């Protein structure tokens, strides 16, 4: 407990301290150092809570504004908090190197101030035990992340992204406000949000009569919209593909790897605390599936690496929501196995996705840092020039696609198995949703594999396509070791996936009695799977050795790529990502809309032709159109004030007469 308090204190003091020094280096050292130290401090109680739920609650005796605010870490909080702190700490270390070249262009204070605030706020969101405190942390998180996104605000696109994010998160927070201020609201929500307790800080009922209980469904819907918009739930998550690429890469890593999860966390809390009804699960599965498929389809139409990663975050958020939906159905139909596995899958996938997506964003960041180029089709052949970045990025890509032997596979296995069990249960209302979830899962896995093999291949393999990729430099050590650390975590998450799942089930046990026994078979399945992973590694090593032995005795020459008789191969004839993903993107044309700009060769002597992925976000376009419409209609009403004092007096008279009529009628 004392350590947790220190963690928060370190974050906050670090935030302020980063503002003080004049020198850039000192400020960034303080800021990053505070973030890392705070994470280290917070990890201890969080890790303890993974094994045994912490009994303590850190309670702040707060004067009137907020009343009592208390923190506590139980299993669920810990499941979210441990990866969050690890990622935030590593991203901070990376960010120090990443922002180093901005010395002289800006002060280091602001970025690190907001970064530490964000760290504290996220920690608070995961541990708050009081609705008002949750709100406070939530808003602080939204604000600090906004300012971090807008760090390079000289760029118009960044400002636009920030604006979209701010509006979206504000509208989402409005629902949370209601959720947290409902009469008798508690966090985590108490079943039967009911008779009004305490109107304001001093707990006096404020002279209000008790009210009828709020239906749990309303609470769920509020949570779904409020938290879902942060989790990137379609169509509320339109801000996500805009904001994540706009932020500096270490921030993108935190946003995608951690902040999205706060939305999942909130929904999970509600599902665990309230008795779900079947339609909750159906809604979650429908929306989650849509989010996942839309997200993965979006990855195919992107020209920029970071945008691709952002869309993939949306996909994975969808997969987590699928898990939550299955879990909710399991609880609703009283099928504890499905409940345990569904929620468990969501938790495990949350952990894995956090690690892999952060790793990928850090990799994309160092590509941007080394080449200054965002578009994939300008890059190529970076693996030779940035070996560490390339290798770690490959690991991340394998993980994000849910391929064995990395952790990503474990979570997809659990999710698929959960859906399979739900499908096989003789329970009408559970089977079709499970089938849908399963289909969405498999579809996403395949498409993600396509997208990321293409992205990795185009960016890091082959020959440089453009000058940008010619003279590049590998990331400095400060940026390299966080990537290496995350990349080292990836296979560990695969090999120790049974433990991760067990931890998740352990965390769920209080809400779902006997969760651990119910999931035991799946844990053992994962254990067997890890054996096969071992076999895989062994075989691979053996084969590579064999290959080496064989080749060592033969003559091995190098030459140009076999170009099928094409006389003068240039780097520009290589397949670009746009063309790589185009056929698959065409299959999902209906979802993503026009996925690219195709200039066909024309005429006897065709000039340059080409295909560039320029997928537009239909959801965003829809929202913008709607808002623009409302905006225009409202602006038309500005005529109400045209400056004539006569008319103004008339307003007064009219109001007077109207109110009199109302009052005296």
């Amino acid at each position, binding site marked *: 407990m004392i350590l947790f308090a220190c963690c928060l204190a370190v974050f906050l003091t670090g935030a302020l301290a980063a503002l003080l020094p004049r020198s850039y280096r000192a400020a960034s050292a303080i800021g990053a150092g505070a973030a890392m130290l705070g994470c280290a401090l917070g990890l201890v109680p969080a890790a303890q809570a993974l094994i045994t739920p912490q009994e303590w609650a850190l309670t702040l005796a707060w004067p009137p504004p907020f009343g009592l605010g208390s923190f506590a870490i139980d299993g669920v909080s810990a499941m979210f908090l441990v990866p969050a702190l690890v990622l935030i700490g590593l991203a901070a270390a990376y960010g120090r190197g990443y922002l180093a070249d901005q010395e002289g262009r800006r002060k280091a204070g602001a970025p690190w101030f907001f970064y530490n605030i964000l760290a504290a706020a996220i920690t608070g969101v995961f541990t708050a035990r009081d609705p008002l405190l949750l709100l406070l942390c939530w808003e602080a998180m939204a604000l600090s992340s906004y300012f971090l996104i807008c760090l390079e605000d000289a760029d118009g696109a960044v400002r636009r992204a920030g604006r979209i994010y701010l509006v979206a998160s504000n509208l989402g927070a409005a629902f949370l406000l209601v959720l947290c201020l409902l009469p008798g609201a508690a966090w985590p929500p108490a079943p039967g949000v009911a008779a009004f307790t305490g109107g304001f800080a001093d707990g006096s009922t404020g002279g209000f009569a008790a009210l009828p209980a709020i239906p749990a469904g309303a609470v769920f819907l509020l949570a779904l919209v409020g938290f879902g918009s942060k989790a990137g739930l379609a169509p509320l998550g339109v801000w996500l593909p805009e904001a994540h690429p706009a932020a500096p890469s270490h921030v993108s890593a935190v946003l995608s790897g951690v902040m999205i999860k706060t939305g999942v966390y909130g929904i999970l809390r509600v599902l665990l605390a309230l008795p779900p009804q079947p339609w909750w699960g159906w809604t979650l599965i429908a929306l989650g599936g849509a989010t996942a498929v839309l997200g993965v389809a979006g990855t195919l139409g992107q020209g920029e690496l970071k945008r691709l990663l952002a869309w993939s975050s949306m996909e994975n958020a969808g997969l987590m929501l699928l898990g939550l939906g299955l879990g909710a159905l399991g609880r609703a139909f009283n099928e504890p196995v499905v409940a345990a596995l569904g929620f468990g899958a969501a938790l495990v996938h949350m952990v894995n996705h956090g690690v892999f997506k952060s790793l990928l964003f850090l990799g994309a960041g160092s590509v941007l840092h080394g080449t200054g180029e965002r578009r994939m089709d300008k890059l190529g*052949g970076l*693996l*030779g020039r940035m070996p560490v970045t390339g290798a770690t990025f*490959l690991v991340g890509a*394998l993980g994000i696609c*849910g391929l*064995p032997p990395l952790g990503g*596979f474990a979570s997809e*296995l659990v999710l*698929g*198995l959960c859906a*399979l069990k739900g*499908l*096989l249960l003789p329970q009408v209302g559970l089977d079709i949703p499970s*089938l849908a979830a*399963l*289909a969405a899962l*498999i*579809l996403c*896995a*395949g498409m993600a*594999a*396509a997208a990321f*093999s*293409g992205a990795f*291949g185009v960016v890091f*393999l*082959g020959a440089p396509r453009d000058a940008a990729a010619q003279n590049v430099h590998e990331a400095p050590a400060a940026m390299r070791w966080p990537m290496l650390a995350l990349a080292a975590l990836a296979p560990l998450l695969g090999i120790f996936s049974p433990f991760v799942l067990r931890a998740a089930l352990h965390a769920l046990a209080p809400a779902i009695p006997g969760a651990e026994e119910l999931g035991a078979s*799946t844990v*053992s*399945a994962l254990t*067997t*799977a890890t054996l*096969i992973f071992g*076999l895989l590694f062994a*075989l*691979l090593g053996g*084969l*590579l050795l064999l*290959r080496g032995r064989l*080749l060592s005795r*033969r003559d091995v*020459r*190098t*030459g*140009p*790529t*076999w*170009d*099928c008789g094409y006389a003068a*191969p240039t780097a520009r*004839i*290589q*397949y670009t990502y746009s*063309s*790589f*993903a185009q*056929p*698959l993107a065409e*299959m999902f044309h209906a979802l993503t809309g026009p996925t690219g700009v195709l200039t066909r060769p024309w005429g006897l002597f065709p000039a340059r032709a080409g295909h560039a992925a320029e997928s537009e976000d239909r959801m965003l376009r829809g929202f913008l159109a709607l808002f623009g419409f409302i905006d225009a209609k409202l602006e038309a009403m500005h005529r109400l004030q045209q400056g004539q004092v006569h008319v103004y007096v008339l307003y007064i008279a009219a109001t007077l007469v109207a109110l009199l009529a109302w009052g005296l009628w």
Partner: protein
Amino acid sequence: MSAAAFDMGALGALLRMAAGLALCPLLLGVINRVKAKFAGRQGQPLLQTYYELAKLLRKGAVFSTTTSWIFGLGPAAGLACGLCALALVPLGGQPGLFSFEGDLFLFAGLYSLGRFLTATAALDTGSSFEGMGASREMQFAVPAELALILGFVALSQATGEYSLAGILGRLDLARWQACGPVLALTAAALFLVLLAETCRIPVDDPNTHLELTMIHEVMVLDHGGPDLAFIVYGQALKMWTLGAVLAGLVIPARGDGAADVLLGAVWGVVGIFGLAVVIGIVESSMARLRLLLVPRLLVGATALSGLALILLLR
């Protein structure tokens, strides 16, 4: 089960694996022989693939200057994945070396991994042709994988089991009598998947030499020597593994006695080779589909699996 029984089971599984490892190149020979017969030719010897493998393993290699270590990783990883998949698959209803609930996902995942690395290896050469091939491979894999998993799910729905061994172990005559149509649909779907995964007509033509029309072959244009050997052998192994699944599905000979075990294995091998013959017949009686039609074919396979599931769920 008791330790002895386990040892017996493990030993049997190892033996079945060994059979697969040894016999799988023969499948290609059989197919070629069947095609030759249909073409009225003598055809190459049945063991041709073994000769080629031996030759390739003895050859050196020429590596493109643009390639990196990924290029060498691809074929080896592909083969390693194939070997692991073989360890999962039952033969003739008798369990493979490993079996656990949900191993069907691992089964698919292993092939997906191999595909991923092969495709990246292709992209590593920087050749536009190989990029094209990789793109197509990844594209067609999406519906193929979906069809495969949904087929497995249909089977598990039909048998109430969660593992390949369990599923294929329970597919006896009674099961066929119970839900024959479903199993037939699933078998058809899996057959199409097998054609696609092993690059046979009508999806892909291993013998063509026009790169524009190739899918898998064009990805491996630059590979030679041991790498190519790994790839060819991996292809044969893949055909064996998927064939084992299909054979186990269509030949409902099950039993627990030692004799039955042996019989089942034999039936499985026979089934696989029968499948090779069928493939040969298909290849010699059909032409390759236009590339644009391939996705439709695979989506059709998915539809078949889905239909089977719906039939079960009603």
